[in-house]
């Protein structure tokens, strides 16, 4: 009887392992940080793009929602999402904070002149160090936060149409 138990448990163990391998075949292995929501962003100390001031949490606390967008003039997909950001800029509940990432100031200015400036606040992160504080690992990347600076959603890559719809519906709720 004990022998039967051992045999059954060994067989079940093997079946379990094979099942896990089978299920893993369907999972993607590309990692992203989209799951890291619900945390608070803190320690914000961003250099303003044109003025000599510093943007901190206090500036963002007054907004219902803030969309933080990391961009650069040398980033192709950033051009694509610019038009959607301009549309989002019209939303009343939402303010957009743009952080210019590892860029040349002249090129950045020309980018905004050419495509339009969707940003309510504009900061600069010339060495990219600030981006780590936001959990950024590539650009473009955007984070939607509420007035308590809690992360609602992370957008890896350019903001697309369905992202736009999502943001609109989220900030529309009271």
């Amino acid at each position: 009887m004990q022998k039967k138990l051992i045999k059954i448990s060994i067989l079940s163990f093997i079946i379990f392992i094979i099942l896990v391998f089978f299920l893993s075949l369907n999972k993607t292995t590309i990692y992203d940080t989209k799951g890291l929501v619900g945390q608070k962003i803190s320690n914000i100390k961003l250099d303003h793009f044109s003025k000599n001031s510093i943007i901190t949490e206090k500036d963002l606390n007054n907004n219902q929602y803030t969309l933080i967008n990391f961009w650069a003039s040398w980033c192709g997909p950033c051009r694509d999402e610019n038009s959607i950001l301009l549309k989002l800029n019209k939303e009343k509940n939402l303010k957009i904070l743009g952080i210019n990432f590892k860029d040349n100031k002249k090129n950045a200015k020309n980018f905004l002149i050419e495509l339009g400036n969707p940003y309510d606040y504009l900061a600069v992160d010339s060495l990219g160090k600030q981006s780590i504080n936001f959990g950024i690992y590539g650009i473009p990347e955007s984070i939607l936060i509420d007035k308590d600076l809690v992360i609602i959603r992370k957008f890896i890559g350019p903001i697309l149409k369905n992202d736009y719809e999502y943001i609109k519906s989220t900030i529309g709720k009271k």
Partner: protein
Amino acid sequence: MKIKLVIFFIIFNLSIVNAENSSLDPNNIFKNLRCLICQGQSVADSNSEFAQTIKLVVKDQIRSGKSEREIYDFLIEKYGEWIVYKPPLNKVNFLLWLLPYLTFVIGGVIIFLLFKKRVNS
């Protein structure tokens, strides 16, 4: 006499042993971080944009006196456990750390039991 000599040498050796360096070597930390946009490379081995930025931030944190543990915790908070190569010891990972040693102990027990059979028979 010989045993005393051996013990003396052992103690001598151990006392000269310089344990871990007091100042943090950033390269060791880089080796333990995964480059998130690469296919299986550490920050130490990668030249990607992300790796370069992480290197700057880690060096800054070392300079401001953060410990190795604090740096890892900071990065895990921002990027998830996937970014460190040494899985932290928590509820999810304890099996990983436990099972190898468990096997070792079980193996030892099996061999020991095989002796006992001989002694008893």
